[in-house]
């Protein structure tokens, strides 16, 4: 008798588990790039506070590519992306019937950093960076004077992003000229703090990562001014130089992609409106460069006027300025 009771109790429990999904509260699911994560996290935090926790937001880090995979499988409402959606991902989304609104939310400056005790490096050109990082340099370019004879006969220690990150993709495309084409014999890490520590401990080190990591660690790193190929002037990464579009080609826009179907849900629409209204303030707080106010209102206009899709046509582009981006988004 006892056992039959136990069995029926277990059965009831089982039914309760599988019938449970109905009573879930509203949850907005966001996933994707670790670069965009700090901004979206800040917005989610403030949004939940403002809504007194009635609407729930979750943010995961699967990387831009991993985020799009989930997004195009119809599993998330919003996808964080540190690069525009690719042609392949566009196809996947189309196949699953997922339509989206592309929303640039900020600019990031890929920062080339050196040790603060490094006295000989005052600036670098894209060509010099290419000589250091291109695949042909593997095993051959090991000393500073091999890149530029004016530099000393000292070993060159390279630190860079791991091959799965959007940062790696963008840097290689902007510097080497082809995405994901890089020498392999350098210290690679997906964890940028490893790179920060590496460069801060070695006088002969040079590395690259997102601006936020440099901004938080200014005491132990020096940003290397990069010569703008159009003006031939060396420019240091800063909020100002990104806004004025002089820090090129290493400035890049970062995005969130919102699923059109999710926008029918009032809580997602509210969240996006909150995002665009507060993006300017919050991006600054987490050390990214905010876009002009018109960009954020433009994003909401796209929603209102049902302008869907990407303005990049499935291709990543280097050296796009804020103005160009705004013009393109306006044309959609």
């Amino acid at each position: 008798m006892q056992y039959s009771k136990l069995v029926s109790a277990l059965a009831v429990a089982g039914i309760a588990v599988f019938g449970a999904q109905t009573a879930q509260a509203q949850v907005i699911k966001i996933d994707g790039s670790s670069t965009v994560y700090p901004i979206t996290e800040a917005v989610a935090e403030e949004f939940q506070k403002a809504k007194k926790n009635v609407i729930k937001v979750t943010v995961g880090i699967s990387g831009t590519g991993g985020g799009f995979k989930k997004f195009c499988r119809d599993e998330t409402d919003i996808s964080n992306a540190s690069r525009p959606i690719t042609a392949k991902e566009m196809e996947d989304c189309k196949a699953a019937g997922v339509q989206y609104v592309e929303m640039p939310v900020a600019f990031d400056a890929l920062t080339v950093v050196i040790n603060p005790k490094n006295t000989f490096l005052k600036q670098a050109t894209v060509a010099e960076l290419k000589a250091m990082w291109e695949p042909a340099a593997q095993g051959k370019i090991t000393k500073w004077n091999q890149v530029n004879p004016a530099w000393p006969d000292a070993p060159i220690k390279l630190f860079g992003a791991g091959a799965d990150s959007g940062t790696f993709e963008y840097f290689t495309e902007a510097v080497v000229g082809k995405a994901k084409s890089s020498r392999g014999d350098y210290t690679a890490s997906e964890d940028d703090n490893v790179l920060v520590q590496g460069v801060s401990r070695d006088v002969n080190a040079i590395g690259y990562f997102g601006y936020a990591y440099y901004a938080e660690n200014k005491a132990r790193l020096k940003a290397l001014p990069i010569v703008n190929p159009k003006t031939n002037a060396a420019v240091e990464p800063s909020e100002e130089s990104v806004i004025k579009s002089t820090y090129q080609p290493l400035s890049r826009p970062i995005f969130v992609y919102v699923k059109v179907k999710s926008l029918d849900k009032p809580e997602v629409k509210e969240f996006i409106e909150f995002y665009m209204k507060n993006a300017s303030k919050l991006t600054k707080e987490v050390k990214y460069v905010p876009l002009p106010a018109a960009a954020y209102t433009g994003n909401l206009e796209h929603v209102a006027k049902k302008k869907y899709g990407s303005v990049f046509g499935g291709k990543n582009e280097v050296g796009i300025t804020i103005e160009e981006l705004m013009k393109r988004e306006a044309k959609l």
Partner: protein
Amino acid sequence: MQHSTLTAEQVRALIAKGKLKDTLFQALGIFFLGIGLIVIFLLVGDMVLRGSERLNLDFFMNFASRRAANAGILSAWVGSLLVMMVTAFAAVPLGVAAGVYLEEYAKRNWVTEIIEINITNLAAVPSIVYGLLSLGIFVYAFGFGQSILTAGLTLALLILPIVIVSTREAIRSIPAMIREGSMAVGATRWQTCRYHIIPYAMPGILTGVIIGLARAIGETAPIITIGALTFIAFLPPAPFTEVTPGVNAGMFDWLMSPFTVMPIQIFNWTSRPDPAFEINAAAAGFVLMVMVLSMNAIAIWLRYKMRKNIKW
């Protein structure tokens, strides 16, 4: 001949030599033990020193935040605890039943041999493989999604071999006369297991379970694979409380809730640009350490208490 010619001095020298080796080995042992202990103390001490300023009530009661000083581990420790609960509920009955069957019921033939070899091998499979397995089975095929239930079942699979092996070890350590005595007075195999084998094996089983859980609580890879979240500022719904106006959560709604766990929170904090988060990571690391140590302490205490009740 030689034996008889040994003088008292030679004997003393021999003994002294032996004692010297003894002392040397002891010193070596203490030295290596010391290295291990020092490393642990340095690690824990370093975490406590760096994290101490965050170790207050707020740290336990706050959700994650972009500001290091306000960020806490509420969703992480609640998530870890709930996942462990699911893991224990799934792994203990399965593991104990499998262990008892293999020891008490199964015939010794090639099928059980293969099963045994497989169980031992499973204990050595990298945890990420379990993550991939449950991504396919629990998340997609069964449709459990990225939930506490999925995570709990994944970790249950992970520690199942540990539970089975420790159950079998515990059963094997019971003297055969107990089993024979029970059978001799007419008990069935089930009654023997129910009233003798399982109660006597319980201390050993519990130790295995808790060692397994202590391993599971620190696992990150399989939990990331099935899609645990990084930012989550709400708790799973408590049974029968109001989730949205007018709608109450069911008894088991929390099982399907999204979640995060301690190791993921720690990993996220160590990889953030703002160095202030390293303090949070150290504090959270210390909390996780305390959680693991207290689980081990409970295991030791339970074993001690239960062994006292066994009278043979």
